């Protein structure tokens, strides 16, 4: 571990300077949000800052990735792959100059740091977290001359060692990734909402519907990211709609998102009038599963235009009901890596995701066809992708469908 720390000081320094840059942006953001209450999400350059888990070839070799990432990101929204979008208003650029002074760039040598470690798996029996932390800490002090400060360090370094990977990260934010200045009352965790919206292939000029919008979290995230779009949210509950209304006002998105008091089983919309549907299907017990969920998806299918996409967040229960026996045969990784759905219509997937080679899937395709036939309520909806995500205490699944043709054709 010492060797790994010392052999590659360059990448440590690179990571630190990126971290500093992000913090400067962060400081600007903090100042600005005090003035404008206008939040920013971050987009960090492609290669450097990607949250990845590497599978090591040999268990002995531990490859260290020195990246900036959010501490909680490791556990939670791995789906997002560490992409955050930075947005700045032009009007805020003037303020930036003042803030650059205020931030006070740290001299590299003056950094104080703290190393926090987590060990899991077989490694945990060999080392304790404190030992690892100490080894790394001493190596860093020797290498860079930084001082350790356990109470209030400038720099926090998180290390997570498990049997398959080691991750070294420097948290950029001190608050959870999902916190949003512009959402007054959050329903669904914002990171999941954003992830769903980004799967939905929202394009300018689209009509996007969330027929069970609740407090409107999904629409808020989508509207912030893809503004040239017509968003409609619907819910049956007055209190939820009021909450959504408040959220829209607080976020300044009242003009972008329209609300309706409408039931998802009876959408007052003409057939094939909506381009995209994104929804978090309520997990609660008051909601009858089984029959109702099929009706819901049927109604969604009706209003969706051909070629449109549906992205749904389903609980384990929903998933089990809908998929029946298919679930046991498709392996799912627990940390949100993509499960290749055998035989799924790769040719329709515009993003050209990891394709299963055609010959290999022929036998799978046959069995998958069988499974698809067992899902009559979906009619012309073709499954495209599926992800397992963690909502903290529970897991859920994000399903993406595309409508191929009108039902009955």
């Amino acid at each position, binding site marked *: 571990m010492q060797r790994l720390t010392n052999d590659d000081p360059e990448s440590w320094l690179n990571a630190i300077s990126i971290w500093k840059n992000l913090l400067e942006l962060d400081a600007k953001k903090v100042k600005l949000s005090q003035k404008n209450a206008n939040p920013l999400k971050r987009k960090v350059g492609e290669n450097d800052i990607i949250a990845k888990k590497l599978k090591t070839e040999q268990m002995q070799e531990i490859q260290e990735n020195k990246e900036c990432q959010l501490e909680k990101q490791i556990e939670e929204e791995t789906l997002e792959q560490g992409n955050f979008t930075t947005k700045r208003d032009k009007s805020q650029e003037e303020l930036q100059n003042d803030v650059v002074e205020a931030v006070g760039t740290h001299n590299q040598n003056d950094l104080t740091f703290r190393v926090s470690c987590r060990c899991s798996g077989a490694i945990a029996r060999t080392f304790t977290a404190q030992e690892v932390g100490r080894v790394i800490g001493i190596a860093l002090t020797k290498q860079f001359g930084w001082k350790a400060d356990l109470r209030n360090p400038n720099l926090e370094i998180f290390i997570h060692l498990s049997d398959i990977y080691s991750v070294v990260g420097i948290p950029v934010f001190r608050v959870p990734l999902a916190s949003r200045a512009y959402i007054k009352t959050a329903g669904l965790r914002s990171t999941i909402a954003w992830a769903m919206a980004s799967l939905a292939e929202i394009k300018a*000029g689209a009509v996007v519907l969330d027929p069970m919008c609740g407090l409107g979290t999904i629409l808020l995230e989508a509207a912030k990211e893809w503004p040239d779009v017509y968003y*409609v949210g619907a819910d049956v509950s007055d209190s939820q*709609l009021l909450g959504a209304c408040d959220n829209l006002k607080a976020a300044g998105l009242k*003009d972008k998102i*329209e609300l309706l*008091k409408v039931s998802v089983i*009876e*959408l*007052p919309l*003409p057939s094939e009038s909506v381009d995209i549907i994104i929804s978090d299907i309520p997990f609660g017990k008051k909601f009858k599963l089984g029959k109702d969920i099929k009706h819901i998806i049927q109604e969604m299918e009706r209003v969706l235009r051909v070629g449109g996409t549906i992205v749904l967040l389903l609980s384990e229960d929903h998933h089990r009901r809908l998929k029946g026996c298919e679930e046991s045969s498709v392996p799912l990784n627990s940390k949100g890596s993509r499960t290749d759905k055998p035989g799924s219509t790769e040719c329709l997937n515009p993003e050209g995701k990891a394709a299963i080679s055609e010959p290999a899937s022929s036998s799978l395709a046959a069995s998958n066809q069988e499974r698809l036939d067992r899902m009559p309520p979906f009619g012309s909806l073709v499954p495209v992708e599926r992800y397992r995500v963690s909502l903290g205490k529970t897991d859920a699944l994000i399903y993406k469908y595309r409508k191929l043709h009108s039902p009955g054709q």
Partner: protein
Amino acid sequence: MKLLTHNLLSSHVRGVGPRGFPLRLQATEVRISPVEFNPDFVARMIPKVEWAALLEAADTLHLVEVPKEPIQGYEHDESFLRQMHHVLLEVDVLEGTLQCPESGRLFPISRGIPNMLLSDEETET
């Protein structure tokens, strides 16, 4: 409720089908508020607009300067786009009703949100 939304809504009282469109609009409180003009967005919405329905609604609200139909090359005609922007996005019906043209069923609009929940008997099978 903006007129762009009204343009999309259709009654689904049982048996009504496509004759449930468009809903007849009655407004008791309307608010006109400026919305940031995004010509690209407006241009993309134009092809989706059902013009007869829009004109009928605009007429009920006594709006003036409403284009009767899309003009040639509307994508680049700023004044046309601005007029459409105003009609579709800047007029907000806060209180009023929507009426199913076939069944006569009234749906209230309250605080800008239309309530289109149907009772069990009314829903289409």
